[in-house]
């Protein structure tokens, strides 16, 4: 069984993301589908491009039912709200199918934003195609773009979902700080536990990791 731990290095180039048939975003890629309109909790139709800030843009795929989202909720809200005041555009996107979980319907989306004090848009990706375009697979999952709209960080919030006090690596916050300070982000990609996005049925699942 020794070779098991070497395999990921071999297989890293084999990734095709779930249900999309395309590879996900890579560091340096531009914001995809930034002109696609999505319904915000206030009823407006918003695109990522319209939300983008002049110092950067934070896109977070999230949902309502997921315990991992709930575990990170306070930290996500804090980071998101702080970004708004620092000219980094923030948009939270719900790509999950309410037919798969009623908590993902629009009233729940609105209630969550209100209850948690989101100071940023929380929009509905009605086809899940925005998530597919990003290669997003789970919630929560963050994508941070610089002022030019190029991806500089992709991944989780920090390294401890259930205990903020025990988190030793604040990936997203550190990436945002680096962006604002004009430094290169040190840790550009991370993984974190999360709920699989409840993709609308068009071409998902299968969610194969290797093909």
């Amino acid at each position: 069984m020794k070779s098991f731990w070497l395999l990921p290095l071999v297989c890293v180039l084999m990734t095709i993301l779930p249900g999309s048939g395309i590879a996900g975003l890579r560091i340096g890629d531009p914001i995809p589908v930034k002109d696609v309109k999505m319904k915000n909790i206030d009823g407006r139709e918003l695109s990522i491009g319209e939300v983008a800030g002049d110092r950067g843009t934070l896109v977070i795929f999230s949902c309502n039912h997921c315990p991992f989202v709930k575990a990170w909720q306070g930290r996500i809200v804090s980071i998101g709200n702080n970004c708004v005041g620092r000219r980094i555009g923030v948009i939270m996107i719900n790509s999950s199918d309410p037919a798969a979980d009623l908590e993902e319907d629009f009233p729940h989306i609105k209630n969550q934003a209100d209850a948690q004090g989101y100071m940023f848009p929380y929009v509905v990706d009605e086809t899940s195609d925005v998530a597919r375009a990003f290669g997003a697979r789970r919630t929560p999952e963050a994508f941070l773009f610089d002022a030019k709209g190029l991806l500089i960080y992709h991944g989780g919030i920090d390294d401890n979902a259930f205990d903020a006090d025990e988190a030793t690596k604040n990936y997203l916050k550190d990436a945002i700080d680096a962006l604002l300070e004009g430094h290169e982000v040190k840790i550009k990609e991370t993984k974190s536990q999360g709920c699989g996005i409840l993709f609308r049925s068009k071409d998902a699942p299968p969610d194969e990791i290797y093909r």
Partner: protein
Amino acid sequence: MLMLVAGCGNRDRETAVKLVKVIDIHELKNLISTQTNDVVFLHFWSTYCPPCMDEFPSMITLADKWEGHGVTVLLVSADSRRNVVAVNDYLVKHQMRHPCYVADNLNDTFITAISQNWSGALPASFFLDSHGTIVESWEGTRSYEAYDQVIRNLVNGDKKGNMKP
């Protein structure tokens, strides 16, 4: 050798499982690397994850079915370590009689050590052959038959069809 699906027999069906162990990535790596069974089925789930729970009866059936047939079934929960009692209660409720694990902080380090290509989404399944090579894996749920077929193929491949429970 750790026979994780070593038999206790049906007499223990009603016995509460008290074998939920918090495990870190180093311990899990060691556990896998010391297996002598021909096939390892590694499955990550959580009591926080409704789709995971929907298919968990299949995991119990698979662990029962392949017990003693060269297959190690490793079920690792992504629940918080504070939730071990709840995990245990869930397993008892479902009459699970095989040892299970709770990951000690399933973070980037843990996930990446399992697979560079696993996003961290749950559930997630990995099938390892006798060489310890991941030959199949996926995120999300599948039917019982889909899981069983992969295991069957691996067992038959390794044992030339001699093991067909």
